[in-house]
């Protein structure tokens, strides 16, 4: 009887005791999304991407445009040759500590940003090194057999050359069009195709943003959202721009599962060119809603230096990673990355 009582006291003491002995040395610190600094004796689990862990560099991707290998036909037409290799066995750390099997064009999600001028002959030498069938389907104007839907390219080295004249002017997506289509898209087989007008656009600091998401647990809902794949990346690595300089963003929404996505800019409004097909802007706004593969060109410039957010105003998406910062510097003289 006494033993039993002692046993009960003993057990309850053991179970309550750990609470009293929690005074350990605390070393690491981190900042919460609301700016509070927290200390811990353990490890930090924070979607904070550092350069050493990047498989894919969103900074590089942001201002990178592929113009292909240029040659000219007898008639003087510009020919741009690209080699695109599809793979489907890569495991990428798409957010710190979270690994996902990405399917890639040229090793990255999104694939390379292909850029040509209206009327150029674009030749895509497509090689499928994946284990499954893949294709490349470009949005735009081309012949039926270049549509990448019925011309399935088998895995293990299958080849196909897509050939078409670049057009119409604007910003378009390209993606794999093998069934089940949703699966091939959400794994990462997509990219951006920009067609410049012959007369060119005004000089600007140009960047490309693919709004995408990842369903890492395959429940037909995205676990992560981002501009250019890595959640919260541009929040921790603000995009540096200058006051008084024209900024041009080619935005393409590749989010699946959710019917809409959107783009909200802080402290400013942008001129919006839907699909970029017209040279006159349709809207002057700070909020554009985009459905699947809907895209456009945004142009703006900042008058005041400082930090400005840009994010989905579908706040769920921004709290799952689709959120970034422009760091506007007061420096009118700077390099302007306009590609060609």
């Amino acid at each position, binding site marked *: *009887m006494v033993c*039993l*009582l002692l046993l*009960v*006291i003993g*057990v*309850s003491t053991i*179970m*309550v005791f*750990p*609470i*009293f002995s929690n005074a*350990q040395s605390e070393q*690491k610190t*981190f*900042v*919460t*999304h*609301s700016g*509070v600094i*927290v200390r*811990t*004796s*353990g*490890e*930090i*689990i*924070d*979607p*904070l991407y550092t350069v050493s862990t990047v498989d894919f560099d969103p900074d590089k991707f942001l201002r990178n445009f592929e113009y292909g290998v240029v040659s000219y036909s007898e008639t003087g037409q510009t020919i741009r040759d690209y080699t695109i290799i599809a793979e489907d066995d890569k495991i990428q750390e*798409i*957010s*710190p*500590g*979270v*690994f*996902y099997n990405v399917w890639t064009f040229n090793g990255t999600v999104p694939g390379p940003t292909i850029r040509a001028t209206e009327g150029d002959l674009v030749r895509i030498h497509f090689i499928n090194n994946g284990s499954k069938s893949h294709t490349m389907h470009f949005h735009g104007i081309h012949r039926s057999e270049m549509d990448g839907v019925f011309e399935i390219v088998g895995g293990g080295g299958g080849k196909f050359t897509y050939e078409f004249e670049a057009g119409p002017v604007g910003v378009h997506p390209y993606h794999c069009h093998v069934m089940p289509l949703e699966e091939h898209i959400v794994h990462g087989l997509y990219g951006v195709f920009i067609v410049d007008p012959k007369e060119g656009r005004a000089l600007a600091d140009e960047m490309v943003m693919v709004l995408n998401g*990842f369903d*890492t*647990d395959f429940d037909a809902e995205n*676990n*992560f959202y981002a501009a250019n794949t890595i*959640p*919260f990346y541009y929040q921790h690595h603000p995009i540096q721009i200058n006051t008084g300089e024209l900024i041009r963003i080619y935005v393409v929404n590749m989010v699946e599962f959710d019917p809409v996505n959107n783009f909200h800019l802080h402290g400013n409004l942008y001129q919006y060119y839907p699909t970029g097909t017209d040279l006159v802007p349709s809207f002057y706004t700070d909020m554009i809603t985009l459905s699947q593969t809907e895209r456009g060109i945004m142009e703006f410039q900042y008058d005041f230096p400082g930090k400005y957010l840009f994010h989905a105003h579908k706040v*769920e998406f921004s*709290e*799952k*990673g689709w959120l970034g910062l422009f760091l506007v510097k007061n420096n009118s003289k700077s390099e302007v990355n306009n590609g060609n």
Partner: protein
Amino acid sequence: METNKKTSRNKMIVSGIVPFIFIILMMAYIFGPGADLLDLGVPLPEITIEKVDFVKSEIHVTVRNTGPIPVQISMADVNDRIQPAAIEPDKFLERYETALVRIPFEWNEAEPYIIGLTTDDGVRFEKQINAAATALQPNIEFVAFFAIIGTYVGVIPVMIGLLWLPFIKKISKSKYHFFLALTTGLLLFLGIDSVKEAFDVSSENLSGSFNGELLIATTLVLSFLGLYYASEKLTGKADSLKISKPVAIGLMIAIGIGLHNFGEGLAIGAAIGLGSIAFSTFLIIGFALHNTTEGLAIAAPLSRGKLMVGKLIMLGMIAGVPAIFGGWVGGFAYSPFSAVIFLSIGAGAIFQVIVIILKWIREEGEKNLSSASVVSGFAIGMLIMYATSILI
């Protein structure tokens, strides 16, 4: 002769060991290096969120790796919105290892929250909290609070129940058998109630890897057997220990009920700790009414011995005080695993007591359990318990 004996003994030991050697060889063949016989399928990681505490500006999540392989916790979220967080001691969890995830978050009182954790393969596990409430800190105030509640729920009702003793003392033998049978009815209900509660906790909060149903069955049977053995010894030695057989039986009943009340204390403590304050008020009222019948259960066998107030109070304490300890453990250090264990032990203890009382009725009475007084007592015992349990 001597050597003969020795060799036969050695032979016996060897023959006992030989099968083990073959078992080891078999395991080595199946699991050993280079064995790819069972290398099929993909082991899926699994984690279980066992506990969520709301403290000032932070949510504390206790997580256990309940899958077949080590996992890494990569991300935390609140209501499916990603939050930076800390994990202590570290994010790598071996099988069955636990860690504390601290999510800085300005939570709102009484609002529901879903806490999610994502592992390195991108799979998200979640747990819903119906109403956020400040986690209890084991300070003097709350220790005293639970002691008072435990007293109300455990000690006082049992003591009140014991007041029926003089009444039971004065009644005829068949009426006495009626009350003994009533006691078994009450206890059977309590036993079933404990098992049900254990299954509920197991299915809601215990990971499948603990094999909750069989954990309950195993613990229950072990508890039953252990206490049965102990009580046989105790009642057998009753004379030499200078306690009468009724007191020995009363003591076993008190121990069984005590273990059960510990489980009830756990339930109340956990309900308060998990923020279901209104629910716990009902629990307290219900348990208090319910538990007066437990006093009756202890009183019934004792009524045939001498009236010993001191011993009676002692038995009342054994039955009632564990509710206080249960409240402390449930409120400050709740874990579904320990709750299931205690509830199962309590159930085993109660079933053991039922067997002892039934044996006693048979020995005392007409060697049968089908007399009108026994059957009606048993039935009414169950009915009383059901009626009072609706109040919970």
